[in-house]
């Protein structure tokens, strides 16, 4: 039998007290919203994000992709970077503000787009895009590409890393998604001294 012998460490309280209020615990409950990659609007919706956010994010990522995707003069050069069958020819007249006349170039396929898990609704998304624009990146959601070794990469300069890990299907569900509460007090209706036993 394993017991706590007297030489054993005393139990400790990480929070120091059991009289804690929500306030005292807020430091532990602080949420850092994470960036999540989605491969499609449907996957974004299925993961619990707001549909309008998913759609706007996709459109912005596509806009950013058309304007700023990594460009190559030849298919071979593009495939050397992004892998065989992972590039497409893009007529230059599809690109806004294209300075270079006719012809076409080669770009990798858009593998997905990245959104913050903290985006609750389309208003949040527009705020987020405005903040991004102020910080110098001109599009809201970030286009994601997959390089030849399968890593996800982005061309948008972001603080920190320029590579994100695409979640597997199982972990695509974002955590503690922001939403809008429509009703409360549906539990806890019984009044009693105490519910413990």
């Amino acid at each position, binding site marked *: 039998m394993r017991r706590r012998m007297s030489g054993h460490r*005393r139990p400790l309280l990480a929070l120091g007290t059991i009289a804690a209020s929500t306030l005292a615990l807020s430091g532990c409950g602080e949420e850092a919203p994470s960036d999540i990659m989605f491969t499609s609007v449907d996957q974004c919706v299925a993961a619990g994000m707001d549909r309008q956010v998913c759609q706007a994010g996709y459109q912005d990522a596509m806009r950013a992709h058309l304007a700023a995707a990594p460009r190559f003069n030849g298919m071979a050069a593009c495939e050397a970077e992004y892998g065989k069958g992972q590039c497409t020819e893009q007529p230059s007249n599809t690109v806004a503000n294209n300075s270079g006349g006719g012809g076409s170039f080669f770009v990798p396929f858009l593998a997905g787009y990245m959104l913050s898990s903290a985006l609750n609704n389309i208003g949040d998304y527009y705020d987020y895009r405005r903040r991004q624009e102020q910080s110098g990146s001109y599009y809201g959601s970030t286009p994601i590409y997959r390089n030849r070794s399968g890593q996800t990469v982005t061309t948008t300069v972001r603080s920190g890393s320029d590579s994100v890990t695409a979640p597997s299907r199982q972990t695509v569900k974002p955590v503690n998604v922001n939403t809008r509460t429509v009703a409360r007090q549906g539990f806890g209706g019984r009044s009693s001294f105490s*519910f413990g036993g």
Partner: protein
Amino acid sequence: MKRITLPARPDWRDKARAVGFGFHVMYGEPYWLDDAAYTFTLDEIEKQIEEPSQELHDMCMDLVGEIVGSEESLDRLAIPEDLRDVVQRSWQRRDRHLYGRFDLAYDGNGPAKLLEYNADTPTSVFETAYFQFNWLTDQIALGVLPKDADQYNFLQESLVEAFDQFPKESIFHFAAITDNEEDRGTTVYLMDCAVQAGHRVELLDIREIGIDAQGRYTDLKDRVIDRCFKLYPWEFMLREPFARELARSGDVFVEPAWKAVLSNKGLLPLLWQRHRNHPNLLPSYFTDDPAASTLTDYVRKPLLSREGENVTIFRNGRDSISAPGDYGDEGFIVQAYAPLFESDTGFAVLGSWIAGDRACGLAVREDRSRITANLSRFVPHVIMD
């Protein structure tokens, strides 16, 4: 097993205050006793409490699948029909559970007898795991107890280990009726264990839980609740307005919905049917079972009841003592009477803890009445051969 008195720690009230243990006095009555203890031999602890508790838990876990797979059993336990899916699916998914406490009748003679399994919302966990152990080490340091005095208590580390098994990506929410000091203290203690296991935690009142348009549970910051400990019984939750959202979000809560079948007194006759004459079980029957009339000294308990409410003890077939309450609508069971440990100060019930799936600690509560209720006192225990 003996009851002893000894000098209280001179500064125990300061120590209680320092850790926020305000409910050492409850409803004007002392709840924590610092100047008394129950003593056990190592053999009593190992052979009569720890091993049987582990076996009882394993028996219960074996029985859950059978119960949730049988409409007849679910009828017996009065699980609401429209929510049986929630209970069944939580078991099929093997939704993880955290802890439970067996109440045992034991007086030092013969095997301990299972009175019930508080598998859903057990309390006295802080008193057992934290304050009781500090009492032991303080009393040893003061020379009041011998150096080799011990305690059957690895509850806190077992809870931390059990919390460690839950995924940590999401915030682990904790919900209780927060204006009840005891429930809030118990819940915050469990949050502390979760923090020690590496979780981010947040406390909210169970009444503050919301839902969004998609039927997901939400917190006060309008975030979806992905996992939530609740110190609030399933038998209430299953009958409340938000229960309809459980079909979608049923995997959120800890304890999981399948605990509704273990924290139900109907478990006792079902265990007896399957393990008749097991040394740690008392003969138990649903009241409409003809065999129920074979008992002359017995206790009638509502299927759902807390704090001893609506429990009646019958001696020689006659009603001898009963406790008031608001339970009983769902039906009753009868269970053979088992004597509790008795001393000048009253009657003692053993609380034997399971965390994860491991028997790991002991709490003793005593009461002046044979029916242990909310006003019973917590008395620390010590192993001394």
